[in-house]
């Protein structure tokens, strides 16, 4: 029993406590100590264990959250299993919150009685170790995935970077300029793409998807589907003859369908790898059986129509998920024309139209008739902050990208007028508010506070009707082009991927971090980390920061050869388990599986299904123990028997 100087001793009459505790069954020795956590205090415990041949220890002191680990090490020094120790919290929960000795002393006795009742039911627990496979899988080759892969690789570990599209680069590659500095997106991204491709520790798997994930931290088993590219990457030199000669055209996804590409193509000139892919749905050879021009002209003989999807099985110690986002589909807004007015475009489409390598060569021509717009209206919060038709959350990046686009417009075409309809302008980033101020003051962008009620065509223009809520009047603008700042939303296959890997996602299908403040890049599944907008709307600086943070977490994990597992895990009494599987869905970690065991009943051997706990995945929350109807599930360190004993000891 610790005095903690006068912290405990002044409020709890420890002598009285000692007298009461000495009488308890199983209690052999009680002693007091001025500062138990100090070096001599700990030595006293070790000496006590040895002298009295103790096999259980209770320390009555401060909160176990403070010194449980300390005292576990102390008893281990005396050769005792560290889990044969219990702490009675008589400081935070007693002496510090009660003022009178008459109140605090009986309570301290109760707390000690409970700790004694529990500790006699403690059993030795051992941590086991699992080996760590020091290879990381990064899913998604946008800026988040590239950054995470580069950082992990620079820390000296092998990385496989899997990207669904034929090239890495992601959304950032589609952008024209980046806020708040207005540097060209491609200029800062493409060097990183090349770095990733040339890094000796990084292996790029583009045009590939995750098929299956099994295992657990340190030991994931992943199946990757490498889709048939119809081009042998090892042989192809990326010379470009094939796509210059290809006769079939299709809308270019990279340009949001505003321009065209060939059926054999690279998405954009700086694509990495610079190897084309055949879009079989639009290729004449595959649709009509005739053509084969690309194969004929390829000097390297790289075109391979017979190529098939390939399944790769790989082992990884950690996974970084960086799958990014999609844009909200604004066709649900009837008041904005159901996505049918060609001159009502999204912010991303605007990026392509104003980009020098875009479908218009950087000349902002509107999609309907190629006219150069003189009046452009930007509408913010389309699909975001809208419970009725979109999502309630703020999409976080739109205020800044809209300001940027308005600036780009005014910079390129000073004769064009820019209007921005906004509800709030949110600029909480370094240099962001200054950037927004430049938009209004230096570039003369007209900001109007109010949500647009309606957009409708009038002649070859679009009437945008809103309220300027600061004036309190309806306003109308006859616009040539309307740009909707559509919200960032989770990818449509996000939930499926999360289920496949086995971690959780929120109601909007964004991936859930382990703790919203303190564990922002971990998932609740050990060994799986998050980077970028797959976790929630995010701009480039935040994405890169999170990607590097995820990389550090991976590197931390890989700094060890083996991992100690948490010994306080769930355990199944197979004898009483009825195989009802009620425990399974309560487990947030997917740690419970069902296995079949053979049993002898009389002379026969019968097989029976029972639950089994994967101790690598179990985090010891105990939810399954309560779901278990037959009481077969228990939690080591917090067993039913231990907790009931505490209850009874307190109620005595």
């Amino acid at each position, binding site marked *: 029993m610790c005095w903690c100087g006068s912290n405990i001793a002044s409020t709890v009459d420890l002598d009285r406590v000692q007298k009461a505790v000495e009488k308890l069954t199983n209690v052999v020795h009680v002693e007091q100590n001025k500062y138990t956590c100090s070096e001599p205090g700990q030595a006293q415990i070790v000496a006590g264990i040895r002298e009295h041949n103790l096999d259980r220890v209770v320390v009555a002191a401060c909160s176990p959250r403070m010194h449980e680990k300390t005292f576990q090490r102390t008893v281990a020094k005396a050769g005792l299993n560290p889990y044969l120790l219990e702490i009675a919290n008589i400081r935070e929960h007693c002496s510090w919150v009660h003022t009178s000795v008459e109140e605090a002393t009986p309570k301290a006795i109760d707390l000690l009685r409970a700790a004694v009742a529990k500790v006699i039911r403690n059993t030795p627990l051992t941590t086991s170790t699992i080996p760590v496979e020091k290879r990381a899988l990064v899913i998604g080759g946008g800026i988040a995935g590239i950054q995470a892969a580069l950082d992990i690789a620079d820390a000296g570990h092998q990385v496989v970077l899997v990207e669904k599209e034929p090239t890495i680069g992601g959304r950032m590659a589609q952008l024209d300029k980046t806020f708040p500095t207005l540097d060209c997106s491609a200029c800062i991204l493409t060097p990183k793409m090349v770095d990733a491709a040339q890094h000796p520790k990084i292996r790029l798997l583009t045009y590939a998807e995750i098929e299956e994930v099994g295992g657990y931290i340190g030991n994931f088993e992943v199946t990757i589907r490498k889709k048939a590219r119809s081009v042998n990457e090892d042989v192809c030199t990326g010379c470009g003859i094939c796509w210059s000669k290809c006769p079939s055209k299709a809308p270019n996804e990279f340009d949001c369908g505003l321009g065209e590409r060939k059926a054999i193509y690279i998405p954009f000139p700086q694509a990495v790898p610079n190897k084309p892919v055949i879009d079989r749905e639009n290729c004449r050879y595959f649709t009509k059986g005739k053509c084969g021009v690309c194969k004929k002209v390829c000097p390297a003989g790289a075109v391979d129509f017979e190529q098939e999807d390939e399944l790769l099985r790989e082992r990884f110690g950690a996974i970084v998920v960086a799958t990014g986002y999609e844009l909200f589909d604004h066709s649900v807004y009837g*008041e904005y024309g159901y996505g049918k007015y060609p001159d009502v475009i999204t912010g991303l489409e605007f990026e392509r139209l104003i980009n020098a390598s875009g479908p218009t060569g950087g000349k902002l021509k509107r999609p309907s008739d190629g006219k150069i717009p003189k009046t452009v209206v930007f509408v913010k*919060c389309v699909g975001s*902050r*809208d*419970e*009725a*038709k*979109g999502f309630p959350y703020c999409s976080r990046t739109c205020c800044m990208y809209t300001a940027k686009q308005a600036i780009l417009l005014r910079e390129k075409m000073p004769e064009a007028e820019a209007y921005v309809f906004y*509800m709030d302008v949110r600029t909480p980033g370094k240099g962001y508010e200054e950037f927004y101020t430049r938009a209004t003051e230096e570039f003369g962008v007209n900001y109007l*506070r*109010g*949500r*647009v*009620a*309606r957009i409708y065509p009038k002649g070859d223009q679009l009437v945008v*009707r*809103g*309220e*300027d*809520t600061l004036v*309190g*009047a*309806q*306003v109308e603008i006859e616009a040539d082009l309307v740009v909707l700042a559509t919200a960032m939303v989770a990818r449509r296959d996000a939930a499926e991927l999360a289920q496949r890997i086995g971690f959780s996602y929120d109601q909007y299908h964004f991936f859930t971090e382990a703790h919203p403040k303190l564990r922002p890049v971990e998932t609740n599944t050990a060994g799986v980390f998050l980077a970028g907008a797959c976790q929630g709307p995010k701009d480039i600086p935040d994405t890169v920061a999170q990607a590097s943070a995820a990389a550090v977490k991976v590197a931390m994990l890989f700094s060890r050869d083996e991992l100690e597992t948490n010994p306080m895990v769930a355990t199944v009494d197979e004898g009483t388990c009825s195989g009802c599987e009620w425990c399974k869905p309560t487990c947030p970690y997917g740690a419970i599986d069902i296995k079949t065991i053979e049993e002898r009943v009389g002379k026969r051997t019968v097989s029976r299904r029972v639950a089994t706990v994967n101790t690598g995945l179990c985090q010891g929350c105990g939810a399954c123990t309560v779901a278990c109807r037959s009481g077969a599930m228990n939690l080591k360190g917090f067993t039913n028997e231990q907790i009931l004993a505490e209850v009874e000891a307190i109620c005595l």
Partner: protein
Amino acid sequence: MAVVNLTEIVRNRKEFIDEVEKHGGKNVNSCYQCGKCSAGCPVSYAMDYQPRQVMRMVQLGMKDKVLSTSTIWLCAHCMTCTTRCPREVDIAGVMEALRMICRKENRPIRERKVPLFHDLFLDIIRKGGRQHEFQLAARYKIATGNLFQDVDLGRRMFFQGKLRLFGPKVKGAESVRKIFEKCKELEGDVQ
């Protein structure tokens, strides 16, 4: 505009908001003042305050002010606002609730002719079971003293057979009268 002292007003706002919600105005506190309602309101131009401003006054509990606006009477109940509201606030329903509260408390009404019309309309149904447009027009004109409004139109309609001088006869007129009485009994007459 005079300074609005919110100290007392805000203290009592819950009571007022509850009253508005009891009369059918849903989710008043969800409004975040985006202005989409006012931007799409066809009658906004004739109102002294935008529907959005009315919503704000309700949120703050500015009962006297909001009940003296013309807006609540000029709402045509076209429900464009309610249909488009991103926060699923029934703005048209709030307007309706405010009108009812205004009449219940016998407060001065900014657009007197609007409720006058509705009162005459209902009075004719109460007595005859169905509407009678000729009677409605005639009584409205007498009540407003504007006898010559649309006289020419009336004459042309009469000759097209569109104005019947005598009202329809409904056998169940009596049962309709009873419905009026019971509603008055249960909800209180607000006319």
